[in-house]
């Protein structure tokens, strides 16, 4: 990594529009992951698995088509009623033949569907690991709250007779958080198709697109989990709340794209995503947020889309628009076991474990490299800081392309029109994020004792667990593992509140038991004892800092742009 990009990176963080994505949506940010772009080798591994799953998908489509055609031939040759079929099956060879074809096709389609589902679920495991997409906790406090367990699904729809059937257009949607219980990811997130993208600013199917889909649905998961934590159940969401949630989910996707661009540009690569692709999600988020605000002001109690004027209605929020469950229960593993496809499952699982290990190793290597870079750049940044500061703010890779001057959305026009007639209520105030200086990674502790380091971790965990980078946490944790557990040790540190005290005790317990804790575990421990405070950030930048809690442009440090040291 060169020095200059690193310096620009801090400046970029300071003025990035990404932080304007703070939202009032009822989402519990603590449940969200801290995703980042997978290394190229890992992306290639995932893409290879996607390519390998494509023939299975085709096999399913063909088996399904034979099922559909033979069903028609059975109706033609054997009649439509059960009695007719019973008689004709005895009399007609072609009827018997078609019934056999139909039954075989039904069985084949079921097995092919199970194989595709199983293979793609394995890919999801790789994706979650490679992009760090798992939420900090996969379930809320309540045992009844949904578990985070994303799975692959074909798109199912209800026909005019009320029966569930496969949707003809499998490329219509990326995923869904179905009925607030289960994240389903659809084929469109995986398979490339030259002409399939109606909007060309969308991200092409593949590993990156899959990460976006998973993150989007995880935002819905976080919102639902918060509802469970607060109420013990999921209250009926009002129309504006659905839109706020959607805005947050789209904003998160845009943020992730920007983050991935930064990951690459810091490493000296070209930004993989264009401003138009990022703007695609920002525009959607803006539209949803504007609409949510209008509806909250004018129709705060509306729940169903039919309670809204047509201009505000969205088909995707109408009941049933996102249904994707089958009529009969379907368990891919059970189907494959019944079909004696154990060898297929074993081969898939072995391959997944192998690739998971490779991803683990590659992440470990990257962590070590980043740690070295961070240590080096810490010393150089102080030397170059003034030069960076004098160079003034940088708008980043998107500057000069005019994306900040995009035309206002339809809803903004509508809002203007309404506001000329109706005096608006004051916009609901949102708490401004507290300006904090960018965190910097520290070297491995030399002087402090293990207990002192644990006390420091406890304080960080209760204040802002993500102000410490994963790399640093790992290093510190390796150091404190094996610390001697003492009951009254906490008294020597003068903790200011119960959260710090209890978190310290828990961390000490884990360290003395030589548990393998991660930063996420530390955050979840502190979360149990924390009573209030601002929501923690979603993302961490690649070098371990924190971009969500960076100051707003208007809240830059007083020394800007002549800062020499920010911390």
């Amino acid at each position, binding site marked *: 990594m060169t020095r200059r990009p690193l310096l620009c990176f801090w400046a970029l963080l300071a003025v990035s529009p990404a932080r304007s994505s703070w939202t009032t949506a009822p989402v519990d940010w603590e449940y969200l992951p801290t995703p980042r772009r997978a290394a190229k080798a890992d992306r290639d591994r995932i893409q290879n698995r996607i390519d390998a799953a494509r023939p299975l998908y085709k096999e399913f489509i063909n088996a399904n088509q034979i099922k559909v055609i033979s069903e028609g031939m059975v109706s033609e040759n054997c009649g439509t009623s059960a009695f007719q079929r019973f008689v004709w099956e005895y009399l007609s060879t072609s009827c018997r033949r078609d019934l056999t074809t139909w039954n075989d096709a039904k069985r084949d389609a079921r097995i092919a569907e199970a194989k595709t589902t199983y293979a793609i679920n394995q890919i999801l495991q790789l994706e979650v690991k490679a992009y760090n997409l798992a939420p900090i906790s996969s379930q809320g406090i309540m045992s009844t709250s949904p578990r985070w367990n994303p799975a692959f699904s074909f798109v199912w729809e209800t026909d005019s007779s009320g029966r569930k059937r496969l949707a003809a257009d499998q490329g219509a949607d990326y995923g869904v958080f179905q009925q607030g219980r289960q994240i389903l990811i659809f084929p469109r997130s995986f398979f490339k198709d*030259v002409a399939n993208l109606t909007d060309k600013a969308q991200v092409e199917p593949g590993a990156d697109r899959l990460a976006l889909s998973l993150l989007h649905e995880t935002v819905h998961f976080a919102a639902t989990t918060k509802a469970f934590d607060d109420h013990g159940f999921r209250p009926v969401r009002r129309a504006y709340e659905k839109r706020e949630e959607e805005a947050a989910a789209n904003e998160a996707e845009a943020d992730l794209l920007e983050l991935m661009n930064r990951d690459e540009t810091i490493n000296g690569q070209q930004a993989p995503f264009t401003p138009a692709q990022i*703007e695609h999600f920002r525009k959607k988020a803006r539209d949803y947020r504007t609409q949510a605000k209008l509806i909250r002001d004018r129709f705060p109690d509306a729940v169903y889309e039919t309670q809204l004027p047509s201009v505000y209605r969205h088909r995707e929020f109408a009941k049933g628009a996102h249904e994707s469950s089958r009529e009969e229960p379907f368990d891919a593993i059970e189907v494959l076991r019944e079909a004696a496809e154990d060898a297929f499952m074993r081969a898939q699982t072995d391959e997944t474990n192998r690739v998971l290990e490779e991803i683990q190793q590659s992440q470990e290597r990257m962590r070590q490299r980043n740690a070295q870079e961070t240590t080096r750049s810490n010393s150089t940044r102080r030397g170059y800081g003034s030069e960076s500061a004098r160079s003034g703010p940088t708008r980043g890779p998107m500057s000069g392309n005019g994306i900040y001057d995009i035309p206002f959305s339809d809803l903004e*026009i509508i809002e203007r029109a309404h506001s000329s007639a109706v005096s608006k209520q004051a916009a609901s105030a949102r708490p401004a994020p507290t300006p904090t200086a960018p965190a910097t990674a520290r070297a491995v502790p030399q002087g402090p004792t293990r207990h002192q380091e644990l006390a420091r971790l406890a304080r960080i965990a209760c204040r802002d667990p993500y102000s410490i980078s994963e790399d640093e946490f790992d290093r510190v944790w390796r150091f404190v593992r094996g610390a001697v557990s003492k009951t009254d040790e906490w008294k020597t540190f003068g903790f200011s509140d119960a959260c710090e005290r209890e978190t310290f005790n828990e961390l000490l317990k884990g360290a003395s038991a030589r548990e393998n804790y991660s930063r996420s575990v530390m955050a979840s421990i502190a979360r149990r004892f924390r009573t209030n405070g601002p929501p923690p950030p979603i993302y961490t930048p690649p070098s371990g800092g924190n971009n969500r809690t960076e100051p707003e442009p208007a809240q830059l440090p007083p020394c800007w742009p002549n800062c020499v040291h920010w911390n």
Partner: protein
Amino acid sequence: MLAAGLSSALLYAGFYAFVLSHEEPACELPCPIPDHGGKSTCAPLSLDLQVSSRPIPSGSIYSVWHQISFQNQSCSNIEADVSVLLDGRSRLSGSEFSYLIWDPDGKPIAGPKDRLPFEPSVEPYRYDTNGNPYLREFPQRPGAVGFWYALRPGERLDGNSVRFDPHMEDDHPRDDRDAELPGSAYSRLRADLKAADKKRVTDGITGMRLLDPLPGYRVLEGWRFESAGRYRIQLIYEGSIFASRHTAWEKRLPFPLNILAENILIANARIPPSGIIEKKVRLKSPTREFTVAR
């Protein structure tokens, strides 16, 4: 009793001989029965490509004006996924459709250079999905993934063409402005929204080197040809097709002779043992040429 039995046997023997001697109508198409018995090597379906002779401006992302069509070359019904004929989109239905293009030096050009994104997402042309009445009205089988069309023997099916209709692509399509905001109370708002729409679209297509649409043709998107000269183009379609019998003369016989005749034909392998034949195909269109001008 014996006489009755004898006469029944004679009648059955006569009917048996009649069924076996009955000849199917002669098939004059190049591939009479696709893969009957697994020995056929002919392609039951052909892919055609027509290219306009009008020169294409260099550097434009909307380049080759062309038309694609499928033709059934067999005497069976051929069911194929024709999603791409509808609006150029695939429905992830398992079949793949790709273009091969060679530059004036005969070197293959790798993929569209500007597939993503065309900024902003403004489209100058739109598929006329009502253009081909066969594509518009064909009944889609319930539960099928993709758009499968059963071509009758010899039938040719052309793709929909495009017309000039600049618009913004939106993955949340909304109603028309007039339907969305009815009544005079919204007239000002409607006008504002329409004006904003128009400005976005006008700004979006500015600078694109566009040609007037050709009736009956569609345009290739994303490939940008910088140097002038004569290029070659070919289409490839890969996927599965399903063949089934088109004519079943025995079905027109009265009951129970229709069943008897059918059983006799199946027993003597005169009709395929399975009602459906699946065939994996890789269809290539003829190679055509087009000209890129400065």
